[in-house]
């Protein structure tokens, strides 16, 4: 019974990693590809780590597997966000069928967000008396 659970989790993990791999080849532009790898890839790795935790049924192994899972779930969105932002600022264009670009016009050439810029203005110098 427990073996079947492990096999099902491993099969699910491999399925989602395959989805991520096919997505990274077939998707039209960088942002769609990151969508495939960061979500399906994280889920695939996570399912396999849960399978390891179920298979061993020891506290020390389960703790290590689940802490690895927590680490991956916490860091994958951060890495994907940093990479997507860097790609957008370095001028990687979305594919032709993209018709909403909400960041367009919000960034200056110096990589600062336009709306964040207004709060950072230096206060006018006070005249000395």
């Amino acid at each position, binding site marked *: 019974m427990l073996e079947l659970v492990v096999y099902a989790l491993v099969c699910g993990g491999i399925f989602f990693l395959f989805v991520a791999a096919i997505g990274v080849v077939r998707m039209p532009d960088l942002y769609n590809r990151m969508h495939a790898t960061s979500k399906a890839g994280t889920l695939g790795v996570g399912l396999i780590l849960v399978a390891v935790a179920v298979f061993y049924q020891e506290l020390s192994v389960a703790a290590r597997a689940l802490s690895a899972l927590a680490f991956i779930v916490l*860091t*994958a969105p951060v890495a994907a966000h940093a990479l997507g932002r860097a790609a957008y600022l370095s001028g990687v264009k979305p594919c032709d069928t993209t018709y909403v670009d909400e960041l367009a016009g919000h960034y200056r050439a110096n990589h600062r967000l336009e709306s964040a810029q207004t709060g950072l203005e230096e206060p006018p110098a006070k005249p000395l008396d």
Partner: protein
Amino acid sequence: MSFLSGALVALMLTIPFAVYRLVKGPSLADRVVGLDLITSVSVALAALYALVSGESAFLDVAIALALFAFLATLGLARYIEHRGEKGE
């Protein structure tokens, strides 16, 4: 061949897809996405090998690899973002 070693082989078959993006990717960020997927699959391979071999120490390999992949992606993202400022 047992089920789990078959799963190991099936997992390895996903790496060529990521290598294709790593080699072809039009921009540097595309290559980083391919590299990121390769390290994700490597983490899964290390975890799965912990099942196949019955040696739970391979989980530590998976943890270290995940840590390294995160730092590598962040470093490359910073590099991509700041490389344009020097006028390329």
